[in-house]
């Protein structure tokens, strides 16, 4: 077997050093009845690289890759062009095959990268401090809710109706076990979000208000009044962002008073990957909240010779020290995805990020204008970044399948995200990025014209 270096002669020699007569002697503590007496049922014997690759390639060919179709899906996962050097760098063995940097003297590469990453995320979000990553946006959202509970010592959570429904579902799931009370609602189908309604739900028992920005329908709203209302009741404002590229064009949540900003970092460097691994981003505006943060933090220090270096720090918050009193049970996070984000963001820089955001917005406006010309179709949003909601006048789920049959991946139907919510069933979320061509937009418009009655 190509991954196992021991020869039978090695094994024999080693057994004699150990003083065992056979490998079974080393498994004496496994009771006889617990030992598997034959091979794993149905699993073939070992296979060559070529044979396994062939099997896996056949499975991959059963999927329609985004690059092979006009592609308009978003709703929490965005397709952007990832520069070639990103994948080259994350495949360097020194990054790929390293562990969590517990031995900082031989992990400065990972640690310096994390320090840069934390700085990039904090600046992007308009916050003071970001952590070294969590699993993904949805779990980061829950961690923010849990942290708000620790900070405010209150447990009523107000969720905006326009928070990604899967994120809301993760929060509801976790809250069942922590006795947090969740106040949520379905999104109102209107050009701008119902901020007055949201603010009216904040009371003195509220630990936090959770708002997505841009929201699930693609709408952009001024977070300032929500922050003010939350703070007036002693609650924190948690802002969720699922498209970091947007923050190259629109104000940072931290600038508008958000206390905890979390999000999905997948759009930069990571790719679609069918939903994972992704990259949870987590930042706080006020440095006094640092000690309540979940997850790893990388900090600057000096070594014994006075040279600058980096270490994991403030670990008395964490499970391996604090055990049942930790701020989170998280251990492994998304280190390599953080590297991909860090590299992609370094390649972009502020100039590139702003140009990328502008290009996304330009193409989204172009697409919205073209699609609004399809008979029976209208654009819901007053404003948006690179994703907007189309009203189709009929069940969008069926339309999505009909578009797929024509080779067009036309967007995400809200009916899939909110099963059972009839009033949302005619909405189609359409995302447009720099990877979308004018021809793609035309293909979607034409396909919609053919599919809609």
């Amino acid at each position, binding site marked *: 077997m190509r991954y196992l270096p021991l020869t039978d002669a090695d094994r024999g020699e080693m057994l004699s050093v150990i003083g065992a007569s056979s490998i079974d002697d080393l498994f004496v503590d496994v009771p006889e009845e617990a030992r598997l007496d034959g091979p794993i049922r149905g699993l073939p014997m070992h296979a060559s690289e070529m044979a396994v690759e062939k099997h896996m390639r056949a499975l991959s060919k059963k999927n329609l890759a985004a690059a092979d179709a006009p592609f308009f899906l978003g709703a929490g996962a965005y397709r952007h062009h990832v520069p070639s050097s990103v994948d080259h760098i994350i495949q360097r063995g*020194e990054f790929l095959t390293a562990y969590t940097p517990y031995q900082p003297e031989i992990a400065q590469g990972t640690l310096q990268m994390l320090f840069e990453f934390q700085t990039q995320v904090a600046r992007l979000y308009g916050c003071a401090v970001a952590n070294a990553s969590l699993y993904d946006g949805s779990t980061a959202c829950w961690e923010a809710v849990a942290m708000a509970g620790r900070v405010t010592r209150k447990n009523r959570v107000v969720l905006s109706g326009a928070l990604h429904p899967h994120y809301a579902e993760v929060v509801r799931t976790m809250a069942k076990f922590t006795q947090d009370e969740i106040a949520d609602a379905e999104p109102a189908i209107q050009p701008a979000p119902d901020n007055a309604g949201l603010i009216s739900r904040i009371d003195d028992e509220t630990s936090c208000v959770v708002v997505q920005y841009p929201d699930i329908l693609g709408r952009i709203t001024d977070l300032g009044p929500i922050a003010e209302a939350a703070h007036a009741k002693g609650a924190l404002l948690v802002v969720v962002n699922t498209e970091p590229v947007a923050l190259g064009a629109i104000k940072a949540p931290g600038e508008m008073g958000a206390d905890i900003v979390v999000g999905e970092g997948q759009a930069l460097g990571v790719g679609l990957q069918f939903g994972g691994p992704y990259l949870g981003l987590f930042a706080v505006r006020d440095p006094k909240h640092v000690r309540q943060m979940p997850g790893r933090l990388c900090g600057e220090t000096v070594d014994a010779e006075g040279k600058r270096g980096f270490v994991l720090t403030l670990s008395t918050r964490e499970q391996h020290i604090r055990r049942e009193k930790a701020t989170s049970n998280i251990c492994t996070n998304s280190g390599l995805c953080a590297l991909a984000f860090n590299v992609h963001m370094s390649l972009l820089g502020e100039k590139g990020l702003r140009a990328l955001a502008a290009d996304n917005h330009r193409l989204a406006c172009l697409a919205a204008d073209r699609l609004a010309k399809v008979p029976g179709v209208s654009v819901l949003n007053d404003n948006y970044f690179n994703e907007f909601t189309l009203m189709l006048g009929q069940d969008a789920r069926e339309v999505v399948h009909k578009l797929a049959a024509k080779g067009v991946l036309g967007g995400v139907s809200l009916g899939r995200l909110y099963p059972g919510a009839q009033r949302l069933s005619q909405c189609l979320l359409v995302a447009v990025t720099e990877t979308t061509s004018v021809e793609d937009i035309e293909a979607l418009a034409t396909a919609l014209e053919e599919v809609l009655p």
Partner: protein
Amino acid sequence: MNAPNQSGWKPEMSRASDDSLNNGPATTTGKRALMLEERLLFEIGRADVTGVDLPEPSADAPNRLGGLDRAEPIGLPGLTEPETVRHYTRLSRQNYGIDLGFFPLGSCTMKHNPRLNEKVARMPGFADVHPLQPQETVRGAYEVINELAHWLIELTGMHGVAMSPKAGAHGELCGILCIRAALEARGDAREVVLVPESAHGTNPATAAFAGYRVEDIPATDEGRVDLAALKARLGPDVAAVMITNPNTCGLFERDMKAISDAVHEAGGFVYCDGANFNAIVGKVRPGDLGVDAMHINLHKTFSTPHGGGGPGSGPVVLSEALSPFGPLPFTARTADGVVHLVEEESAEEFGHSQAFGRMTAFHGQMGMFTRALTYILSHGADGLKQVAEDAVLNANYILRSMEDLLHAPYAASGPCMHEALFGDKGFGGELSTLDLAKSLIDEGYHPMTMYFPLVVHGAMLVEPTETESKAALDQFIAAFRHLAERANAGDETMKQAPYYAPRRRLDETLAARKPKLTWSEG
């Protein structure tokens, strides 16, 4: 059984004179040949530089941003591609990885990461598909999840599996929430989860998060769960016991079946931390030992890369009693052979109306699933069994080659499994496990796990894995013996190690006392 003293080191052979190696003339750059110091991105990048060619933004393009344009500078410097590649290549060279050498970090299973797995994960049909694509366009992706799920169930002898948890600790949480949901479904509110003192910190953190009070399970002198004491503690308030098997002392819990039977009899559930599954994969099925839930770290046993701290992946295999409560979404194959994604909407149709909820936005770590499935198919039934046997053989070889020099608290009670545990008893002077670990860095090795498990003073947990050759082990043993002899002799020069790493010991107290967590000018 003791190996001879291979190093030939004697206490009088001080190493202080070796410092002459460091005494060349100072360089003007501060660099030393291949040791290239690299400044921070924020010190070398510029706001007006980008490494990506994009259209210049046009002032007369439509603006529908609701008047919320980001006007202030963000503070994100950019680099061109050649500068970027050089920056990260230099950083990478300050890192230790499995590709560079032996990485015996106990409980972390740092085995070789096969490159075929990387290639497969990057196939466009896996890497460039969106999680919410119409089902008919991603059947192959569902098949990967379903095929991996099938083999995980077969390898563990369990009934079902929840694939969505994002890492080991997330899997633990999933398992404990399944247990809680199952108990609540029968109207049985229990308050306590029992966890051994030797457990990973994630175990008590998870149980506490799920609303349980955590109590210790007593251990015997030989490093295993004390069955009699456990039985005495079981009662109607105990929701679950969380046991790691093989345990963190590197020992198989011989009484596992009896433990499970006792817990079940008392109405509780058995959670097994599967971090150490590598020792028994293909040899023992946890389902046969009465386990109700166990997470599998795909980034340990199934070789998906650790990536400097993730991403991981933590599917949880479940017993028949817990399977109905597993989270959404998941995949299911219908009689016509088609694999479906079961979400909130279709849960009832697929007979899964008791799901406790959703752990994450999408379906789990697809990029890890493709790698793990590739690994399983590459090894096959014979290869996986050989993995466990070689991992255990390598660990015992180290244990028996070191036990005359290092305190091995459980060596007398029999063989270890996949990792060898030592303590610092016998070190001379003021020397500690930390000093020995840092000295290993100078010898070109990543240190073993230090000070874990908590039950052994100055613990050193050495996990070689199966992907090391005998020659690599022999070289490591020679170096490890040399250092053990010096530690036992109280060689004070070890207190300043490492001498030759990119950094000397770092001031962690300073980092925590005055946290500097982001870069700022000045």
